[in-house]
């Protein structure tokens, strides 16, 4: 199967796990525990890429704290504005402590009290006691356990390889193709089952939460393979703050002072800062040294964006393909980030479920032979930017996309009159700019594929935002400022049909509706403003 110009390395494995953060490491370890051969591949380095290096801790509720479990469920229903998936909310909360114990057994140090118990809450906040556990060494120390455990278990680790496309044959996913950092040679990984754990996607923000390598790669690969995608209309609230003394702090949920010296309440789904800017009262401060920069991430709410899991195993609906972590939209928290710390524990819980299920599927599956013609087609398409003599550089195109996506009035304070022309601009970039991307070296080939993925993600975000003709959680439409029950007690789904992006509504089960006789203001206590 080798070719003189671009020789490829061919690897065979039972379970291929793509992405090396919480979800990927849990998927790899749990699949390996089932006794199958597992390969874990990351475009960066395990425990050192995506968003996983940066959390301060994780959420985990001890099973005996039934009071906390009930409190959190209520918080998720109301805070998530009733479109959280209650089955997954409960699963994530109930399985959180077992996954926390896994991390402890893998050697990840968490803060303890004098007696040696894990009791110290993450930020000393009363409300968070008994559920948020802080790292002993602070953010950045996750690599200690995340990489070591898969290594110890005998998982094959491939780093600095970006998986660019899945191989689909006879309706099933039978592997994936990746690119490397040092040459234009390809990696072809044949797998009986594949788990996507590559996070969600943003638009390479600089100055907000560091997530420049999270470019919706998994969502787009799964979408092209026929999976359903959801949650693209929502927005994360960590839209950034810059300390004047250098460095970055995050969060816009604390009270701020506007340019006129008046206090601005925090939270409001993180939109209060944007509304102040919209009214001409930016910049916004906290203390003397901290300025809210308003760096929109383009990321949706953790757990509420990505590949729709069709069952409790996080199957994508495409045979052989599973998703976990921020690649998978369990909708455990709904339209706003209603349970702090869920990002990590949701990734651990879904990673463990998807990894176990993928291993069981692999045991009953025969390794397929990859069709030579299909492989040639994939190779040509993947290497096209490298074969071009000229065109547009990925960094320039990314800059254009940022110009379109970054202003507060596109992804945060939305209006149909702005979303529609932006969608048309993104479609132009998709059709006229992307095919002319060119890569001068392997580093730029990675950037070209990331740029392609970000542009398709932008199209999804515009279409989903236009489609939901109401406001809910972090999705705020100036032209539709109110929640509309029961019409929009529903999820916005995206699927490729005959090569076209189609958007449709999936109603939530009626038994999950809020009591519609409760007055609007009480049903939605946390409205913007």
């Amino acid at each position, binding site marked *: 199967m080798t070719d003189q110009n671009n020789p490829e390395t061919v690897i065979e494995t039972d379970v291929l796990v793509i992405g090396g953060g919480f979800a990927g490491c849990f998927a790899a370890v749990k699949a390996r525990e089932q006794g199958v051969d597992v390969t874990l591949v990351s475009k960066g380095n395990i425990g050192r890429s995506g968003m996983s290096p940066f959390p301060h801790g994780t959420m985990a509720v001890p099973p005996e704290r039934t009071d906390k479990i009930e409190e959190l469920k209520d918080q998720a229903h109301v805070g998530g504005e009733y479109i959280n998936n209650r089955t997954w909310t409960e699963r994530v909360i109930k399985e959180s402590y077992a996954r926390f114990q896994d991390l402890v057994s893998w050697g990840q140090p968490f803060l303890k009290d004098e007696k040696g118990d894990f009791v110290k809450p993450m930020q000393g906040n009363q409300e968070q006691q008994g559920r948020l556990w802080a790292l002993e060494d602070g953010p950045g120390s996750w690599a200690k356990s995340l990489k070591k455990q898969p290594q110890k278990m005998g998982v094959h680790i491939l780093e600095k390889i970006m998986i660019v496309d899945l191989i689909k044959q006879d309706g099933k996913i039978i592997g994936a193709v990746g690119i490397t950092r040092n040459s234009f040679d390809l990696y072809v990984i044949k797998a009986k089952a594949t788990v996507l754990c590559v996070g969600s996607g943003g638009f390479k923000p600089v100055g907000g939460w*560091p997530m420049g390598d999270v470019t919706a790669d998994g969502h787009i690969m799964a979408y092209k393979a026929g999976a359903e995608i959801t949650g693209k209309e929502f927005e994360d609230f960590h839209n950034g703050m810059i300390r004047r003394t250098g460095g970055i702090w995050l969060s816009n949920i604390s009270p701020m002072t506007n340019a006129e010296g008046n206090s601005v309440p925090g939270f409001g789904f993180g939109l209060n800062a944007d509304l102040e*800017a919209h009214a001409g009262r930016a910049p916004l401060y906290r203390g003397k040294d901290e300025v809210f920069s308003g760096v929109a991430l383009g990321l949706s709410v953790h757990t509420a964006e990505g590949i729709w899991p069709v069952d409790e195993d996080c199957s994508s609906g495409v045979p052989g393909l599973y998703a976990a972590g921020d690649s998978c939209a369990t909708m455990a928290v709904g339209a706003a980030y209603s349970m702090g710390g869920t990002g990590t524990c949701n990734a651990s819980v879904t990673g463990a479920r998807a990894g176990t299920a993928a291993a069981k599927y692999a045991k009953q599956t025969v390794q397929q032979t990859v069709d030579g013609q299909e492989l040639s087609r994939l190779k040509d398409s993947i290497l096209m930017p490298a074969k071009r003599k000229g065109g547009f550089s990925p960094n320039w195109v990314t800059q254009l996309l940022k110009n379109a996506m970054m202003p507060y009035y596109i992804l945060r304070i939305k209006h149909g009159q702005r979303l529609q022309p932006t969608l048309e601009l993104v479609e132009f970039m998709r059709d006229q700019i992307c095919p002319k991307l060119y890569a001068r070296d392997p580093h730029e080939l990675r950037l070209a594929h990331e740029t392609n993925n970000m542009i398709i993600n932008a199209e999804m975000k515009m279409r989903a935002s236009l489609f939901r003709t109401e406001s809910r959680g972090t999705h705020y439409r100036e032209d539709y400022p109110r929640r509309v029950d029961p019409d929009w007690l529903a999820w916005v789904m995206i699927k490729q049909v005959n090569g076209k992006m189609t958007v449709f509504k999936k109603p939530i089960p009626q038994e999950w509706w809020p009591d519609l006789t409760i007055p609007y203001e009480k049903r939605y206590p946390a409205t913007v403003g």
Partner: protein
Amino acid sequence: MTIERIDIGLCIGCGTCVESCPMDVIRMDDKTKKAIIKYPEDCQLCKLCEIDCPQNAIYISPEKVSPYLTSWG
């Protein structure tokens, strides 16, 4: 405010920063066997390289403001 320099006098060529950088900004120089800033425009200011460097050889400027985009300004 991006990665500004790697002190060649302090760098021992251990490659830790190359492993730490999620953005592929840092590479090893084949000739000097030390770390070099190959793609500074892709730095996302996460500081993982600075945190991980055993020699404190990496300097990320707090002064220079890169022309990043903001939601308003």
